[in-house]
Every structure is written in structure tokens, then in C-alpha cells.
């Protein structure tokens, strides 16, 4: 990607924008004077000009998403890529067990691909996939850095079905690179490369309820086995994965609802969006009055909701020594008008038009979480990331122009 500037004396023309394909530039300049020579032939006084193109910084932005749900298949990813346009699909013609998803603007890479030990190797060494010792952070750093700089990489593939490391696939640098997995923020060097980071924190009760829904259909699984599996992984999870929360720009915490006493179905959820203050290019979402503390039940005279309704709260807080603001939603959306009503009362959503969040949610009504805070906040984060991307691009192309004018 390059920014080109044409220098002429006395004026300078900046060929705005950035190019990532070959472009033909025709430069016409008006002759300031032409005069017939003695033998009646027009001669032109040529003005010197120089065209310089700088292969400026690549405009790939890198987003990190820490999630325990298995890569690239998660609903969050699909909502995110949908905001940028286009459906994300596995690379065509490649390994069918590839974890990578590619859309027009976005490429999602699964960090499991950087496992240094395959399933057998981990068994021998007695380490889980959660353990940093099972991952090659040097390679992760190298390849994410290369992609950020606009260079393609040959990235290994970890095959979740066979548990083996497959031959690598070629990844082209995209506009937006999302790295999703267990350890996007674990290594300090990789953290530095991230333009924005998100941590999806599912509480144990909700995790249990979701896994029951997922696994009970499988022969062999029982409530006990599901419980044992979660508990056995917990020590490694708490030691290696959970601490990444402190580095995230946004933490989405999913908890059981407080609106229904003793609810254990995990269907109605309380979702908190914990937003770090002072992050470049990120303006936290707020309710009514930024920095104040609000408790809001939208259901009432203007809006009727069915049981259990919706409850919002907003306020500043401290999280791992960081200043944050928290937007929290408990309950479910039942109707379109509830969704649009709530959307219209939130600020700093980075929407491009009224009702964009609602429209995005409607596009994917079949996705899990479409009627509660998980889908709602995930969609909003998608819009915030789009806003971040556009700000970064605007800044980067403004810089060379400014330099040329000087």
C-alpha cells in the first residue's frame, strides 16, 4: 500500500488515498507558456516534476479476541465480519479443516494454529492446550507482525479433528486481521501489535449451562462428565487465560440473570460490557450522561416488555487498576421495537445511521444471543472496531500528505 505525491515546482499535488494495486497515473500539466521559436515550431518549456511513492505503513489493523469457545466458528466472529460486510468463509481450495476465515476485508486466524505440541505431544508432556508451553509464541509474534506489515505468511494449521499439525496455508495480509483464541494477549510482544483487544468472559454457571446444551446430545456425555471436564480445566484456565482480562480494551462478561431467582437454564443472561478508558480511537458507549451512574428499566409506559423484561445499568468503575465504564444489560429482547428503543437511548455507538445496531441484529436473528446482551454488545463492538479502523486509516493517510505540504 502506498501513498503517492507528485512534486512540481511551484505546486505540489497529493494523489490522495492509498493504493494497494497497480495504478496508472497520468499527470498532465499545463504549459505556462509556449512560444514560437524562430522557425515557427512550438516549443514547450518543460517544468520539472518528480513523482515519489512511499510504500508507507501497511494499513492492516490487528484485533485480538480471547475466547474459550473454539476458533473462528464463534458467533462473535460472524457478527464482527458481518459489520464489515460479506460473509467470512474458510479459504477456498485449501485444507478443509482449516480454522481460518476470510471475507472481503477481514481475515480471522485461530491461535490454535500456533500450537507447538499436537494432541499426542501434549499428552506426553502432560500439558493442556491452555498451557503456554503448548504454544509457539515466537512464531505467533513473527507472523502477526509480518501480516501487520503487509507481508503474506505461511501459517501452520492445527487440525482439531485429527489433533495433528497439518502443512501450512498461505495467508495474505488483510485490511483487518483478527486473531482469536486462548492466548492473544498472553505474550507481551503480540500484545503490542494489537490495535484493539477483547476478552469474552463466560462465568462458570453460564459455561456449564451452555456446555450441557452442546454436549448432552452426545452419547457418552453426562452431567457429571461435563462438570468434571470444566473443573479439570479450571486451574490452567485461571492461571493462564483469565489474567489476560486486565490487558483487554473491552471485557464482555456473561453472567446468569438476576431478574429470575434461581435461574439455572442460562437462557436469560446478564451481560456486562467493561470498557477501558483512555484507549486511542475508542470512545466508550454510554447511557444518558457520560461518567455518571445510571440504572434504567426501559419497560414502562412507552414500552411494554414481556417477562422477565430488560434492565440496564451504566457507571464508572475500576477493573484491575484501570479506569473503566461499564454498560450492563440483564434480560431479553422480545420484539423489534424494544431493540430500537434501547438503541436510541445509548450514545457513542459509532453507528452510521439510526437503527444500525438493530438492523445488524435482525440480519442474524438465527445466531445465538440475538435476543440478549451477548448479541447486542457483540454487534456494538463490531461497530466500534469499524470506527477504530476508519480513524486509523484516516490518520495514516493524513500524515504523508501533511509531510508533503510542509
Amino acid at each position, binding site marked *: 500500500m502506498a501513498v503517492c505525491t507528485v512534486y512540481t515546482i511551484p505546486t505540489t499535488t497529493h494523489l490522495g488515498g492509498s493504493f494497494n494495486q497497480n495504478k496508472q497515473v497520468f499527470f498532465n500539466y499545463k504549459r505556462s507558456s509556449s512560444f514560437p521559436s524562430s522557425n515557427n515550431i512550438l516549443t514547450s518549456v518543460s517544468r520539472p516534476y518528480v513523482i515519489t511513492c512511499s510504500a508507507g505503513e501497511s494499513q492492516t489493523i490487528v484485533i485480538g479476541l480471547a475466547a474459550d*469457545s*473454539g476458533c473462528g*466458528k464463534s458467533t462473535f466472529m460472524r457478527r464482527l465480519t458481518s459489520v464489515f460486510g460479506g460473509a467470512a468463509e474458510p479459504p*477456498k481450495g485449501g485444507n478443509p479443516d482449516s480454522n481460518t476465515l476470510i471475507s472481503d476485508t477481514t481475515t480471522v486466524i485461530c491461535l490454535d494454529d500456533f500450537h507447538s505440541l499436537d*494432541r499426542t505431544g*501434549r*499428552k506426553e508432556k*502432560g*500439558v*493442556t*492446550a*491452555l498451557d503456554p508451553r503448548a504454544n509457539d509464541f515466537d512464531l505467533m509474534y513473527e507472523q502477526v507482525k509480518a501480516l501487520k506489515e503487509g507481508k503474506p505468511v505461511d501459517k501452520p494449521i492445527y487440525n*482439531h*479433528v485429527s*489433533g495433528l499439525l497439518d502443512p501450512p496455508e498461505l495467508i495474505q495480509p488483510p485490511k483487518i486481521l483478527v486473531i482469536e483464541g486462548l492466548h492473544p494477549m498472553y505474550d507481551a510482544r503480540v500484545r503490542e501489535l494489537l490495535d484493539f483487544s477483547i476478552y469474552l468472559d463466560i462465568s462458570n454457571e453460564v459455561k456449564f449451562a451452555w*456446555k450441557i446444551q*452442546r*454436549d448432552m446430545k*452426545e*452419547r*457418552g*456425555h453426562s452431567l457429571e*462428565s461435563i462438570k*468434571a*471436564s470444566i473443573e*479439570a*480445566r479450571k*486451574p*490452567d484456565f485461571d492461571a493462564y487465560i483469565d489474567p489476560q482480562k486486565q490487558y483487554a480494551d473491552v471485557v464482555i462478561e456473561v453472567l446468569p440473570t438476576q431478574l429470575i431467582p434461581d435461574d439455572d437454564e442460562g437462557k436469560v443472561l446478564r451481560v456486562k460490557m467493561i470498557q477501558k478508558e483512555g484507549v486511542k480511537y475508542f470512545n466508550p458507549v454510554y447511557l444518558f450522561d457520560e461518567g455518571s451512574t445510571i440504572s434504567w428499566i426501559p419497560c414502562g409506559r412507552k414500552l411494554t416488555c414481556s417477562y422477565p423484561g430488560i434492565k440496564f445499568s451504566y457507571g464508572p468503575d475500576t477493573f484491575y487498576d484501570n479506569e473503566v465504564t461499564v454498560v450492563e444489560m440483564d434480560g431479553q429482547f422480545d420484539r423489534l421495537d424494544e431493540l430500537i428503543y434501547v438503541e436510541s437511548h445509548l450514545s457513542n455507538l459509532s453507528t452510521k445511521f439510526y437503527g444500525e445496531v438493530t438492523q445488524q441484529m435482525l440480519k442474524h436473528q438465527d445466531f445465538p444471543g440475538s435476543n440478549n446482551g451477548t448479541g447486542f454488545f457483540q454487534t456494538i463492538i463490531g461497530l466500534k472496531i469499524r470506527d477504530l479502523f476508519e480513524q486509523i486509516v484516516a490518520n495514516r493517510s493524513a500524515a504523508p500528505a501533511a509531510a508533503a505540504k510542509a
Partner: protein
Amino acid sequence: MIQKKIREAEEVCSQDKTSDGCKVAWDEVEEISAAKSHLRLQLMHSGDPLQSFCQEHPETEECRTYQD
């Protein structure tokens, strides 16, 4: 396979619940369960294989369409 892995995990863990072997065994169960559920979802959404093939290769014999 999931059944087998669960039985293995239960065996290993019945000896020592806090051992590394136990952790790894359940981690494997989790990995495979996740892969299986993803496969199930994919099968649900894959639809007609001919349709997706024809989107890629409309010029092949099977995919030609004719209009009167």
C-alpha cells in the same frame, strides 16, 4: 470417539484427580466435543452440495442452466 475419550478421562482421573494426566484427558474431551459440535453445525448448514459446487463452477455440464 467422544465416548472412548470420556471413558479414558474417567479412568485416569479415578486414580488421581489432580494429576496432569487427568487435566489433559478432560482437555482432550473438551477439544473433541467442540470439534464435533462444530461439525454438526456445519452439516446442518451445508445444504445441497451440488448447489455450492455449481456456484464455484457454473460452466460444468451438471451446472448448465437453459432458458427457453
